[in-house]
């Protein structure tokens, strides 16, 4: 019987996605190191801004975006013990939901802090990428606010 071979095999699809007006505006804001949200029908500032209202399905105004702060509070977090290729860190890290000051919802991103130091309610701020290009990774990660 022949011994069975085995080899690593990678498959990658380089999708190009059109952003639409709302996500496009949000990413354009990140390129300028500004975080933008939109006010929904219930009066909440939603970040990142959705194209349609979650309650009424009405189209939300992509030309009336609201800038929020680059600092906020951790509303929830989850430890990622085994990061995968392409994730923000190679070493274990926390995914966090951050409610930026001026926003009413949480933005999902990574937090660069030791596990022991992380708690719901902690103040964090954005660490910007060196060269923003208009992508979610323009936010390199969050870090504890001083």
């Amino acid at each position, binding site marked *: *019987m*022949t011994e069975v*071979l085995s080899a*690593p095999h990678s*498959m*990658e699809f380089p999708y190009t996605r059109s952003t639409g007006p709302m996500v*496009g505006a949000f990413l354009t804001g990140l390129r300028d190191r500004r975080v933008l949200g939109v006010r929904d029908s219930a009066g909440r500032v939603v970040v990142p801004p959705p194209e349609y209202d979650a309650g009424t399905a009405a189209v939300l105004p992509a030309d009336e975006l609201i800038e929020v702060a680059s600092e906020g509070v951790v509303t929830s977090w989850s430890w990622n013990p085994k990061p995968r*290729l392409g994730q923000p860190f190679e070493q274990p890290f926390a995914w966090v939901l951050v409610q930026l000051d001026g926003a009413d919802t949480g933005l999902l991103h990574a937090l660069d802090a030791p596990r022991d130091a992380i708690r719901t309610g902690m103040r964090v701020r954005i660490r910007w990428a060196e060269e923003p290009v*208009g992508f979610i990774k323009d936010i390199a990660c969050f870090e504890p606010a001083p």
Partner: protein
Amino acid sequence: MTAEPITGIVTPIRLDYTYTPGTSPSQFLRGMKEGRILGRRCPSCAKVYVPPRGGCPMCGVEFAEEVRVADTGTLVTFAVVNVNFANRVIDLPYVSGEVRFDGSDTTSMVLVQGIPVDQVRMGMRVKAHWLPRDEWDFTFANIDYVEPLDEPDADYESYKEFV
């Protein structure tokens, strides 16, 4: 800083597999490593499958006999490619063909080179052009492409079941 608003992003989706080809294809890939095209014959219908599977999909019986097939064959059908895709850098236009290697009862997709695109035809006799021996690995890609043989075209009747 660019002033143009963002309208599109590239978001690669990637899957990392550990590929295990199974016993029969493993045998085939070991053959490729040594510059041989191996198939297996069905004991019931006598058809030779390249690369071999564990059994015959038509008869449902296990394959037994290993068969070495030739690296010459017949181009049974082909497509002219005018658009390259990611990570493939071949001068356009090029021909992607299905070749029935002599002694085999299946066809394999291979690149056709060594002839102007508009002169490629069904029934054309071809020969495998192998990569240099020291580059051979456990892969069908050891056959870089096929090129025309100086032989008369095969009769349509001889390959029509593969078209």
